């Protein structure tokens, strides 16, 4: 059961770093994604963009990681944008009440 159902791709233009989340960000994918994101989230020099257009599934595990990224960026006053949020994912963000944090960034 090692077929990867989640992966990330990054592109960088100048100091703008875009991370594309693809597939299912679930419990199985969580720890790898958390480790991947940690240095990026803590890098105050880059302007970080999370592109969720190809994110097909997320649950509280993945949302918890997004929250910790939001917190880290907010504490450093570092730029973060979350873009192209699919409708089903947006619905969960609204339900939980984190859309306001995404909008303010």
């Amino acid at each position, binding site marked *: 059961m090692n077929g990867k*159902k989640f992966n990330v791709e990054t592109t960088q233009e100048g100091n703008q770093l875009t991370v594309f989340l693809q597939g299912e960000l679930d419990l199985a994918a*969580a720890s790898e994604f958390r480790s991947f994101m940690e240095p990026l989230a803590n890098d105050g020099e880059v302007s970080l963009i999370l592109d969720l257009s190809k994110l097909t*599934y997320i649950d*509280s*595990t993945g949302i*918890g990681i997004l929250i910790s990224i939001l917190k880290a960026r907010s504490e450093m006053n570092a730029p973060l944008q979350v873009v192209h949020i699919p409708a*089903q994912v947006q619905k969960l963000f609204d339900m*939980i*009440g984190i859309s306001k944090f995404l909008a303010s960034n």
Partner: protein
Amino acid sequence: MADVNLQQQVRLSIPAQAEYVDLVRLTLYGIAHQMGFSFEDIEDMKVAVSEACNNAVLYAYKRDGGIVDIVFNVGDQELELVIRDEGESFDAEEKTQEPGAWHDTPLEDVETGGLGFYLMQALMDDLEVNSMEGRGTEVRMKKSITFSEEHQ
């Protein structure tokens, strides 16, 4: 009301490991799609059932080799999901009482505990959690089919 006698049952047992939870979502998709649930309702149930399985995977067993049983009770217009583990203990009932959403919370105070239960409650029509000390946890959740015309 669904006639209990007309219910059909699908059972799935998975190892209590994260990489098998996807299998529950795939099975759920197959059953719910066949029953006529909308795409949106299926997505809601996928998250809800995964949250219950995640809890079992993360908290139920203090040893290897644990199993999570998932029962799909297929009614006429309703799907009931029962997620059961035989773990040592888990404060599931207590967790369901915790607030899970952060509509009025500043970002620095946001904590992710309790979020899974909040989502299960919000996404399903009905949720019931029973934990027995040392005998595991049973989560029962139900959703009825809403006809797609209502969403358009």
